[in-house]
């Protein structure tokens, strides 16, 4: 009864051992279980809302061929694009610069707090880290007042509205970019600092002896060598440090992912009416099936490599991202 894959004497099915069959059965079952929510979302989005009630949400719209499955329609997508189109554009305008700025500034701050040593840097670093723990709800109202009353950004921005593609309301996006940059900074600093600590001190010292200034060391050494650095350092000096999974964009977008939905929902954005009421995308899919794809987590474009970190920094991720 021996087979190709099983051990001698084991029961087999179509040339595979029972253990394998059971293993793949369980894996397939778990795969289906995890994928059903996203499949349901996609199917629901192409069912005619009129025929939606009473149909099975996870079945494709096959009426009139199969009764009880709803009729096919792109109307929900039409509605979403009509209602959210402007919001999506605004999200891109907001997220791209904010991500770049907070990544860049965070890496600079981490460099200054890690590689260069000066008196009092631990205190400053603790202040940075404390920034991560400020609840956004606590600062929303003061922040709004800050942008309306303290900083006359609107007045400064207004003359720019004559430029092509610039609308007057864009001043709010500028305010949001600055706010998001500031709020993304602590987590970016934290992540970059973890990375910079792995860089060899001797390399920075060698650059110092070579005559490079602090700014040059940052620009020509630190900024240029990211994952490759810790790898080659580990091969020559310290075998314990491995490669790092952190690069600029995932770290900052993870920060954005967390801050975006919350501030977004109160800002005067045109897409406000349809954003998530749940507040936090990671839990959305459990509560309301339809809202997750319209929340801004979909815009923040999560990338494969960041999930190990989002788990740490936000306390939860979309199950289908894992």
């Amino acid at each position, binding site marked *: 009864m021996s087979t190709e894959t099983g051990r001698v004497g084991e029961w087999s099915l179509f040339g595979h051992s029972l253990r394998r069959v059971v293993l793949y059965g369980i894996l397939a079952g778990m795969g289906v279980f995890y994928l059903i929510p996203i499949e349901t979302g996609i199917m629901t989005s192409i069912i005619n809302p009129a025929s939606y009630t009473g149909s099975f949400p996870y079945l494709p719209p096959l009426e009139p061929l199969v009764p009880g499955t709803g009729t096919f329609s792109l109307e929900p997508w039409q509605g979403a694009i009509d209602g959210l189109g402007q919001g999506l554009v605004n999200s891109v305008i907001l997220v791209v610069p904010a991500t770049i700025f907070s990544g860049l500034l965070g890496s600079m701050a981490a460099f200054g707090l890690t590689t260069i040593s000066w008196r009092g840097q631990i205190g400053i670093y603790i202040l940075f880290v404390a920034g991560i723990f400020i609840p956004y709800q606590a600062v929303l109202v003061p922040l709004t007042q800050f942008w309306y009353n303290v900083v006359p950004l609107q007045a400064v921005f207004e003359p720019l509205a004559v430029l092509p593609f610039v609308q007057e309301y864009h001043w709010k996006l500028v305010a949001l970019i600055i706010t998001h940059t500031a709020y993304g900074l602590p987590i970016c600093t934290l992540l970059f600092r973890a990375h910079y600590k792995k860089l060899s001190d001797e390399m920075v010292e060698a650059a110092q002896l070579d005559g490079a200034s602090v700014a040059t060391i940052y620009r020509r050494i630190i900024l240029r060598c990211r994952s490759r650095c810790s790898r080659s*350092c580990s091969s020559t000096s310290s075998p314990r440090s491995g490669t790092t999974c952190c690069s600029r964009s995932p770290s900052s977008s993870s920060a954005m992912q967390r801050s975006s939905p919350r501030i977004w929902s109160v800002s005067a954005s045109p897409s406000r009416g349809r954003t998530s009421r749940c507040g936090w995308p990671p839990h959305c899919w459990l509560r309301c099936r339809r809202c997750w794809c319209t929340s801004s987590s979909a815009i923040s474009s999560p990338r494969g490599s960041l999930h190990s970190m989002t788990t740490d920094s936000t306390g939860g991720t979309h199950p289908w991202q894992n």
Partner: protein
Amino acid sequence: MAELTLDGVTKVFTEDDGNEIVAVDEVSVDIEDGEFLVLVGPSGCGKSTTLRMVAGLETVTRGEISLAGRRINDSPPAERDIAMVFQSYALYPHMTVAQNMSFGLEESTEMGDDEISEHVADTAAMMGIEDLVDRKPADLSGGQQQRVALGRAIVRDPEAFLMDEPLSNLDAKLRATMRTELQRLQEELGVTTIYVTHDQTEAMTMGDRIAILDDGVLQQVGTPLECYHTPNNLFVAGFIGDPSMNFFEMDVDGDLLVGDRFEYPLTSAQSEAVDEARRVTLGIRPEDIEIEADGSADSPSEFDVAVDVVEPRGDENTLHLTFDRGVDEPVTFTATVSGLRQLQAGDSVVATFPPEAIHLFDADTEAALHNRSLDVPEATEQIV
């Protein structure tokens, strides 16, 4: 190229709880122009800290460091005109070999691109790495990385080289090759060099002079053979030489040294040197002990001993000898004999401690009271 002077250089680290740790204590050395000085000592003795103070990577608590007559205590590293080779090589991993080597020239000189690439090409040719200039450090072997690190220091044509255990990451064979090569290079370039190592073989073979540090305190500065034959104190005597010198604690009784296991007569010169000291440490190098396989001890400086362990090294055998026979863990001392001598563990032999090869140290202060006589000075001079 210039002379480098350390005058009473002290480094005190203050811990968070206010404790002060003296890492380097009043170290004074004059390093002549073009000299190769090896700074040697056990781990944690302050040798790297001393080097880092010269480089400008650590501040100097007290004392003065000057290069070419110019005080450099407060100059930033970049302005000291010093190049350093690190243990981990510290190459810039994202740059090619050529970029690694040209970085220093770009940052610290006004040279144009053509001039820089010419310098880099010349140095690469000198180091035998001209085929590697377009590769990244990660694609190089340890020995090649080592050459690049040296080339990066040499291309800057600095006043002084500082090397922090540059060979310790290489395998034994390559280390021996690089040792010779480094010596040849340094001689060729004639650049004042401080070389830090914990390896006494490197210290003995490479340095014009060695400076031995222990616990932040300079123990002795001298040529390798001076340190070997006339150590200042017990520490130097024990640190330099492999296998280490044998030490026996003895009481002084007139012209006789009395120890737990044997007695040893002093010559008149030796007892004069011992003077008032009551307890001394008798030291003798393993290669100075003469071993007779047959016969019995018939003079006061000959002893009947047993062979405990034989370590064959090919060219010579290291014998672990003991006065204690039939004891489980005997106290042993070492002697080296020719590799062709046939001796086995358990053999009884006669060990002779020749009077001229004896070192005597004060047991309390550990200072040398009497060093071996060098009655064959022409032999040492030829070597020097």
